[in-house]
């Protein structure tokens, strides 16, 4: 089954396009056209197809990921949105966590809600924690809502009533009343987009979905029409933040699931690379211009989660953004990229990021007016980036400007030379990433030292060997086309949909019939979304329960068998829970009562991962194309190191560190502690000596 497949990843600055036809893979970067993103997509797609000599009509599948929904939220450019809440609970969005995300800063700003208070309406009704109606929906009050919405010129509405995850009847009835009067209104129900306990997160998710829904539905419709008009006859899939593909219609209904699709694509790529290399414990490391993303992948499965924050107001601090409860690939994202700005703080410490110079003006060495030193400037000052070879030589960097910026903003205040200042900047950013990786791992109860690092994104190959040293990691893999890794990852993702529902249950006297009915409903919902995209392929089902000891606050994910449950499954579920708990926290609590809060079901086409390739025989050292002077931290001096062209390296060839391996999109820096070879998949594999 050789298909012709396209992937398109719209980022803030660039739109990446990747074409796979037979054995060929071609890539292209064009500028993102924010005003009408489909134009950039069409331009890049048609240009790449022309290069490849492939007609659009011959393309079977187009997989698409985009940051548009995220950007609409960050820039507050979504629809004029209203919220309808339970009477007495108008301010759930403002009350939020009642806390400050920065303990010592008395001048913090809280995230601005997507719906101002004047557009938040309430209706008398009440459902209790068990789903029983305490107060019937006030039909007369609900009937006045359409006129109020019209008066406020509302385009999109979120309905979020208390405990609607337990009984959605009132939300459904409110929608009916609204659509009868206003048939064109976009309506999001919290019980559909996020049927989970905790009113703030559920309401926030519903409101965010309502906020981007008209925009995304409009964009996806225009893209579909543009593709059809240009002769496209294949299927369009959207990449979701959970790492699965979804059909256009489902994406238009729950566009909030598309945020973070780019990083999800990166994690999928890392999984694929791990499979080819036969690696079971992987840390994926994606470092671009603004941020670094780090994700744990065990046994070829990226960690997943149901919590995410968008639009963090302050320096990537947890709690400063709008919470979303959607399926996401769990990763830590910190403000550490090539464009991250370095400065010196009041304690005379070097601080790197989270502010980024972006692409305009960009790092000082770009010579576009940037005056502040960035990580890229430090890499130039240390000799790791060859100013003549950046972006395949299409863009010449100014090493003198890099050194001057480092000297002025970091070296000067600390009495350091530009070079040592550059070394400090690189060490700090690497240490920041290492600490983020460590804390992220411990939050999930994992250790990182015995993992393999898979590095991609423009800046990652420069920093991967030092990051690995800091984490005690002995092996690093840098796949081909590392610079457009996310889009390549899109082409490896399965068609999948995850649904969740909160239903509280004690494990003792557990309600098997209730759980079965719930899973049947979840399966029906997932099937509806997945079947059109699966096009007859077989489907795999995965069930989980979010469980904890009664009295605890943090649930762990426990696998549940994909079959009808019976009362006797209590023992099996307890054993499964204890197995997971012991793995995370060492010690189970004897006879502790156990409870289930939520249940999930994921339906997907088989995630066909390739078999591991046979190791290649080492065929001897590669030939260097150049030598460069690179700063060696241990010797505290510059030393000459060989430079290799990645395109010249064949599987089996070896390179001894220290060395640089250059390609158009990035440079791999190999420290003195590593040796490298090219593996059967064309990846550069770094291995720690001794």
């Amino acid at each position, binding site marked *: 089954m050789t298909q012709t497949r396209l992937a398109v990843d719209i980022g803030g600055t660039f739109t990446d396009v990747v074409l796979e036809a037979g054995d060929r893979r071609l890539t292209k970067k064009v500028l993102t056209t924010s005003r009408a993103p489909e134009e950039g997509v069409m331009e890049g797609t048609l240009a790449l197809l022309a290069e490849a000599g492939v007609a659009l009509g011959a393309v079977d599948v187009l997989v698409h990921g985009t940051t548009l929904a995220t950007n609409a939220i960050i820039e507050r450019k979504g629809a004029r949105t209203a919220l309808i809440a339970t009477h007495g*609970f108008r301010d759930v969005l403002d*009350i939020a*966590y009642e*806390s400050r995300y920065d303990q010592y800063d008395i001048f913090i700003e809280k995230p601005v809600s997507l719906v101002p208070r004047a557009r938040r309406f309430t209706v008398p009704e009440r459902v209790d924690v068990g789903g029983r109606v305490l107060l019937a929906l006030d039909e007369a009050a609900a009937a006045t809502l359409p006129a109020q919405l019209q008066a406020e010129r509302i385009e999109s509405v979120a309905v979020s009533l208390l405990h609607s995850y337990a009984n959605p009847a009132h939300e459904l009835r409110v929608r009916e009343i609204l659509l009868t009067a206003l048939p064109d209104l976009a309506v999001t129900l919290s019980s559909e987009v996020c049927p989970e306990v905790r009113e703030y997160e559920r309401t926030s998710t519903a409101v965010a979905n309502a906020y981007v829904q008209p925009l995304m539905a409009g964009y996806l419709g225009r893209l579909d029409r543009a593709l059809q008009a240009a002769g496209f006859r294949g299927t369009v899939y959207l990449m979701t933040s959970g790492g699965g593909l979804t059909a256009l219609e489902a994406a238009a209904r729950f566009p909030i699931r598309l945020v973070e699709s780019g990083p999800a694509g990166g994690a999928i790529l890392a999984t694929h690379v791990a499979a080819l290399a036969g690696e079971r414990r992987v840390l994926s490391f994606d470092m671009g211009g603004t941020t670094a993303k780090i994700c744990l992948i065990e046994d070829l499965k990226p960690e997943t989660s149901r919590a995410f924050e968008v639009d963090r107001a302050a320096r990537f601090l947890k709690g400063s953004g709008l919470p979303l409860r959607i399926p996401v690939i769990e990763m830590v994202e910190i403000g550490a990229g090539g464009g991250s700005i370095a400065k010196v703080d*009041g304690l005379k410490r070097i601080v790197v990021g989270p502010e980024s110079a972006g692409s305009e003006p960009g790092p000082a060495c770009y010579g576009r007016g940037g005056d502040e030193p960035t990580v890229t400037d430090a890499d130039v000052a240390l000799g790791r980036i060859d100013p003549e070879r950046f972006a395949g030589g299409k863009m010449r960097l100014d090493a003198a400007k890099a050194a001057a910026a480092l000297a002025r903003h970091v070296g000067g205040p600390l009495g350091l030379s530009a070079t040592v200042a550059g070394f400090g900047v690189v060490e700090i950013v690497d*240490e920041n990433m290492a600490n983020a990786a460590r804390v992220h791992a411990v939050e999930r109860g994992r250790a990182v030292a015995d993992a393999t690092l898979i590095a991609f994104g423009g800046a990652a190959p420069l920093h991967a060997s030092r990051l690995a040293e800091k984490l005690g990691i002995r092996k690093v893999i840098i796949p081909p086309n590392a610079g457009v890794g996310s889009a390549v990852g899109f082409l490896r993702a399965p068609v999948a949909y995850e649904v969740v529902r909160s239903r509280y249950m004690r494990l003792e006297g557990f309600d098997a019939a209730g759980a079965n009915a719930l899973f049947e409903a979840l399966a029906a919902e997932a099937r509806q979304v997945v079947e059109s995209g699966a096009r007859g392929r077989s489907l795999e089902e995965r069930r989980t329960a979010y469980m904890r000891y009664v009295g605890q606050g943090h649930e762990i994910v426990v696998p549940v068998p994909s079959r009808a449950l019976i009362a006797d499954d209590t023992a099996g579920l307890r054993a499964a829970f204890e197995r997971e708990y012991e793995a995370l926290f060492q*010690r189970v609590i004897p006879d*502790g009562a156990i409870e289930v809060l939520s249940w999930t079901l994921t339906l997907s086409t088989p995630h066909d991962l390739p078999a591991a390739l046979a190791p290649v025989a080492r065929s001897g050292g590669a030939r260097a194309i150049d030598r460069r002077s690179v700063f060696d931290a241990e010797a505290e001096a510059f030393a000459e190191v060989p430079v290799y062209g990645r395109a010249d390296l064949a599987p089996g060839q070896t390179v001894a560190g220290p060395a640089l391996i250059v390609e158009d999109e990035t440079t791999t820096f190999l420290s003195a502690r590593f040796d490298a070879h090219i593996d059967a998949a064309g990846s550069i594999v770094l291995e720690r000596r001794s």
Partner: protein
Amino acid sequence: MTGQIAQIRYQIMWNRLIAVVEEQAQALIRTAFSPIVRECGDLSAGIFDLKGRMLAQAVTGTPGHVNSMALSVSHFIEKFPLASMQPGDIYITNDPWMGTGHLNDFVLTTPAFHRGKLIALFSCTSHLMDIGGIGFGPDGTDVFMEGLYIPHLKLAEGGRMNETLMAMIRANTRLPVDTEGDVYSLAACNDVGAKRLAEMMDEFGLDSLDDLAEHVIANSRAAVEAEIARLPKGTYRNTMRIDGYDEPIDLTAAITVGEKTIHVDFTGTTGVQKRGINVPMAYTEAYTCFGLGCVVAARIPNNAGSLAPLTVSAPPGSILNAPYPRAVASRHVIGQMLPDVVFGCLRQAVPERVPAEGTSCIWMMSLRGPTATDAADKRGFAVTITSNGGTGARPMKDGLDATAYPSGVKGTPVEIAESIAPVVFWRKELRPDSGGAGRTRGGMGQVIEVESSKGLPFELLAAFDRIDHPARGRDGGENGASGVLQLKSGQKLKGKGFQTIPAGERLVLMTPGGGGVGAPSERAGEASARDLRDGLVTAAD
């Protein structure tokens, strides 16, 4: 160049120490039972050198633990000399005077060894929901009524748990499963810290922390001293009156800013009280230093060096230096007011960096009662639901609506509260007009209505303040609205002490608003219009 590279390596290792204690804190949150730890973050974790000096502390929800925990480790070292410490030992106490201020906080300290040598101590503390006695409320008249008192003891010796002590703990709480679970959770988090520290020492080739400790402490101290040097010198005085239990309390402070030090003296403050709102000195120091830190040194990590230039005194026998064995369970109600007292002094020196008074004391509903009409469940429920009022206006920004300050704990979600206790909320929304008007206005409080979901009476262990004495505005800004505690039918309730909410009645809380800054007439038209449009301000005058 070696010296320069060494400086950078010190910075890296310092960052790593902070990362180690953050990991320690995460492990505690993930495994905790106590809802106020796991949902709201009421805990602390840190690493100490062999002189008992704190080198790094995780940034968690509890300023009250800032240097109270820092002092606790030196008490352990006095009791258990370093030479006697063995791998596998764990020490425990909940002494309010040598720990963090009340019996509900357990402090655990674990010696950390590397290659057979004692190198550091890890310490942590968290708030347990119940430690027996009359429960978590202010009604006790001495500390013995407030629950089980654990002196400095070995919780484990050479890796073997002290089962006698564990049995005593289990037998002296209404929540034996949770309390035992929390003790294990505290022990585990210190182990996580010790493990990471050993890895760090291997990586950097260290065999002691001495040089790094000197670097951290000297640099932090110098940074705080440099900040202090920029402040206008002088002595600044302030008094703030609050509700108290039986009588109003005056909190009086004189802050002296010297060349390199700041000293806060609470002479003139009201004396100790009969009921459990008295504050042990360590807790007074914690919230005082937290208030100073927010204004003077917000970006400098907490450790023995950064805390050294900040000193605090209070007359023995005053409510802020309560002697053993006074009742102290609800010491947070008073202690959390101290940053406001500090701000009132500092605004005479640096007005642009200081907010108006806010709600400050967290409005925690401690509720108790039967879970059902039958007698099968002997213990019933005991739950603490946290909520907050508004914070004081900042000079250039409004106060924060419904937000904890100085406490950093989170509010309890309504849907979670209803799942852990037989209660139903009929209202929880912002309280219009409660923020004090001003050029910048105070944060808004909330209106909360709660009823039993079983039609049964339930008990309230009230510990609320700012009902008689609202948060004051400044520079022409108006006071925030006073808090209100009453039944839905109108009957007022006492701000402090045990009371019963009758069957079928609703408990109504109106949390206070923050004070405003500057004359209301100077408020930007746009900001006033937005408040009116949003219905947060209803009376245009």
